[in-house]
């Protein structure tokens, strides 16, 4: 009985818990509730994915109203996988949040913080699970609005301008998406994605459809921080509380990639997106530029959070490349990289959060001698960095392998070389941190008072994610298997 309503529970549990957090008022209680809600969400997501793998796509009619009148939640291998990614990061971040938030957010705002974090989680899960184009927009706004709040809660006053900047850009993006959805509704008279997919092909020549396609692409591109629409991201990541940075970096861009995948492949269809509009001519150059430019910019950052933020934009470039190839191999690479990068970047930002907890700063110079003083944290950072570089036995290697393979399959040597060059640039920016942390002596004043490790409640989640980057870099049957299924499903075969 419960199992039949899992798709609804996936959303309802965090959605209902969010206002309860606000009512509880006390930070500790709110945290406990948020923790339970996030773990329940992970359980739902895992069960759903299992079910999808065993029996194929699930269609759930919300409130028993059949589509296209009611809202349909539709879960297939693609969004089932994304749900697990988002929920897993939520579940890992929540236990970590307690100590980190206690330090970085004023006491009286703790309840608000957990409310916003749960709402953001709800929004991201909602965007992923829904099969209704307008509902997608609604959830996207829920996640966006709550993330503006979360970023603005950062201690640094620059967090306010960062949040405002993101608010402006994010709103433009959301508006573009709603315009796109509106145009589609205008010509087809439906908002259900499957219906849209059926009704769009005959009117492929229509200019309205082309306009809708363009608005959706640019709108999702803004949320995705697709180069050159990425200017909001570095500030937002740099000044938000550490937990928020880790959560958003590991989930928000992934969900935006999912939106692109869903619209390009399910709603408009491969034929339309890649034969009529020739999207690859847009995506591949943008991906290449994002990798090269943003990896290079990352090298020159003095704030480690900002450095990782630029690295995230570069990583988006890899995902977009895979979409641009529009082949099973390319999409597999993109989808598996969603997971792999979420683990890697989530782990890195959590490790960095431990540093910020102890040092109060993420400036590169303040990390001097930290290899001795916080050995576990810094070692986690190094392992995460190796995954970002793409060293074997980490998930980063798997992503690179599949993506380069996809590029070679198309005979695109230039792109293959760019992907590997991106790895080499990553060595440079990661090793800057390593050298500061391990080769510079600790500053004189602090040497007398050695800084201890971060508390276990923060170290364990960090190491869980870092452990996942290693584990799934060795045993890839689960991640690559699901990703390949999802890719085949998007391209119109299998489940």
């Amino acid at each position, binding site marked *: 009985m419960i199992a039949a309503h899992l798709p609804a529970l996936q959303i309802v549990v965090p959605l209902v818990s969010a206002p309860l957090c606000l009512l509880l008022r006390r930070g500790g209680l709110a945290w406990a509730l948020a923790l339970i809600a996030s773990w329940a969400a992970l359980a739902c997501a895992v069960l759903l994915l299992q079910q999808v793998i065993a029996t194929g796509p699930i269609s759930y009619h919300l409130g028993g109203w059949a589509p296209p009148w009611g809202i349909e939640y539709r879960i297939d291998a693609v969004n089932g996988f994304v749900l697990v990614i988002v929920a897993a990061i939520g579940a890992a971040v929540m236990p970590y949040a307690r100590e980190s938030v206690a330090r970085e957010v004023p006491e009286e705002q703790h309840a608000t913080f957990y409310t916003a974090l749960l709402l953001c989680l709800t929004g991201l899960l909602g965007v992923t699970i829904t099969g209704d184009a307008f509902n997608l927009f609604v959830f996207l706004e829920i996640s966006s609005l709550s993330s503006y709040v979360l970023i603005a809660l950062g201690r640094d006053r620059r967090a306010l301008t960062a949040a405002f900047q993101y608010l402006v850009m994010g709103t433009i993006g959301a508006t573009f998406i709603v315009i796109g959805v509106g145009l589609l509704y205008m010509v087809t008279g439906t908002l259900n994605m499957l219906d849209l997919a059926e009704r769009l092909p005959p009117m492929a020549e229509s200019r309205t459809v082309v306009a809708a396609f363009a608005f959706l692409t640019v709108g999702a591109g803004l949320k995705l921080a697709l180069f050159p629409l990425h200017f909001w991201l570095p500030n937002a990541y740099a000044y938000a509380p550490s937990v928020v940075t880790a959560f958003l970096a590991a989930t928000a861009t992934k969900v935006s990639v999912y939106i692109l995948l869903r619209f390009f492949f399910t709603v408009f269809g491969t034929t339309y997106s890649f034969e009529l509009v020739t999207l690859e001519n847009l995506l591949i150059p943008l991906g290449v530029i994002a990798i090269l430019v943003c990896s290079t910019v990352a090298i020159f950052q003095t704030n480690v959070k900002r450095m990782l933020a630029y690295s995230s934009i570069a990583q988006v470039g890899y995902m977009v490349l895979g979409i641009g190839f529009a082949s099973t191999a390319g999409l597999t690479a993109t989808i598996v990289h969603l997971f792999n990068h979420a683990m890697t970047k989530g782990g890195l930002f959590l490790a960095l959060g431990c540093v910020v907890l102890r040092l109060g700063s993420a400036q590169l110079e303040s990390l001097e001698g930290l290899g001795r003083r916080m050995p576990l944290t810094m070692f986690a950072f190094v392992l995460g960095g190796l995954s970002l*570089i793409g060293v*074997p036995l980490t998930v980063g290697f798997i992503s690179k392998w599949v993506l380069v393979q996809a590029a070679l399959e198309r005979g695109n040597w230039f792109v293959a070389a760019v992907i590997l060059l991106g790895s080499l640039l990553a060595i440079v920016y990661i090793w800057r941190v390593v050298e500061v942390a391990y080769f510079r002596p600790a500053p004189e004043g602090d040497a007398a008072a050695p800084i201890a490790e971060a508390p276990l409640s923060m170290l364990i989640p960090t190491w869980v994610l870092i452990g996942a980057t290693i584990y799934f870099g060795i045993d890839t049957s689960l991640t690559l298997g699901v990703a390949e299924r999802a890719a085949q499903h998007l391209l119109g075969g299998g489940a």
Partner: protein
Amino acid sequence: MNPQTAILLSLGIPLSGALLIALFGRQPNLREGVTLTTAALLFGTVITLVPGVMDGARPTVTLIEMLPGLPLRFEVEPLGMMFALVASGLWIVNSIYSIGYMRANKEAHQTRFYVCFAIALASTLGIAFAGNMLTLFVFYEALTLSTYPLVTHKGDAAAKQGGRTYLGILLFTSIGLQLLAILWTWQVAGTLDFIPGGILAGKVSGPVVGVLLLLYMYGIGKAALMPFHRWLPAAMVAPTPVSALLHAVAVVKAGVFTVMKVVVYIFGIDLLAESGQNLWLMYLAAASLLIASLVALTKDNLKARLAYSTVSQLAYVVLGAALATSWGVIGGSMHIAMHAMGKITLFFCAGAIYTAAHKTEVSELSGLGRVMPFTFGAFLIGALSIIGLPPFGGLWGKWYLALGALEAGQIAMVAVLMISSLLNIAYLMPIPIKGFFGKSPDHTEGGNPGPVAIKEAPLPCLIAIGITAFGCLVLFFFPDPLYRLLRPLGF
């Protein structure tokens, strides 16, 4: 012990050793005991595989499937057998040496040192027994990363700079070039297994073979083929035991071993010889060989001179592979073992000189041979072996290489080998000669060098030096087991 277990233990023993060393970090005697036991157990385990492999068995173990169709897989074949024997055998000797050296020089962070050493050895064994190119690549990178903390052991500015060059070049070549070559191979051949005769025959031809070969040869940065050799002299900032085992044996030999594997089992010597694309590699190797020898002549720092000598000697092995003939391959492979024994002796001596007399430059060694006769005697033996003079093992490597060059009809390469031997004499022999017959700095002009007090390095160092110097001699008289082991590579 069945061979499958032995293969897994070859990786498991050094890894669990690393764990135990970390646990006993506070009790130095126990910790070093663990290192020695681990090394001995590892060598014992590797030995058990030899009879089977000699009889033509090729035991395999498949672990997890890392990428679809590409498992982590191990397979023991003659070349890997030899490499594993050399690395694990010399690890025992090197551990004895390390104990003397690290304690006498009061090095810090010795626990980290021994832990990384054990992990590096596990990676080396992984490379030796790799059953496909992916597995080899995985352990190749693991070796690079696990040796980085050893290279930068001192933690000062010079170590950081050296480490940067080390990691920069090795990762750049492996990710930028080698990985691309591997992916390309997978794309065209659909397999990365090591199969006698190669997997690329019929899949690629003409200049494409040349391009792919170029990607591999420069991608295997550990083989230090010029111009990607800079990391090796840079790695000399490490403590001497690291230079001795890793940068004369494990790491560099992993490089040329990979070169051999790629040439023999990925391309196949027939494909290379038919396409004629091996010729340019031959010229590049010859150039690297001669230029490095010439550079070695100019180096006054003893370890730098030995490092350039290694660059030159590695090019011998690449040359052997590039000849693409049976004798060339056997000669190159044999040279891996012969050079390892000779060069580790030289590095041990360099470390002993540093420990006992705190001298690092060749020009400071005048007369020191009379103070350290044992060390300088061993240095002479090692040098003669590297030069390739009887009665030392180094002869055999060069002998078969020259045979290979004749077989390929490349008289010019025979000449290169001979010229290089002369250059070896020019940069190695002055060291013992100066040591024994030069004037001590504290002697006045004209006065006869009187008797001097003997002051050698600590006993563990001397034991290690003695073993490897004796090894050079043994390899001259008994090269036959090695030859029988390697013969299937060529015929």
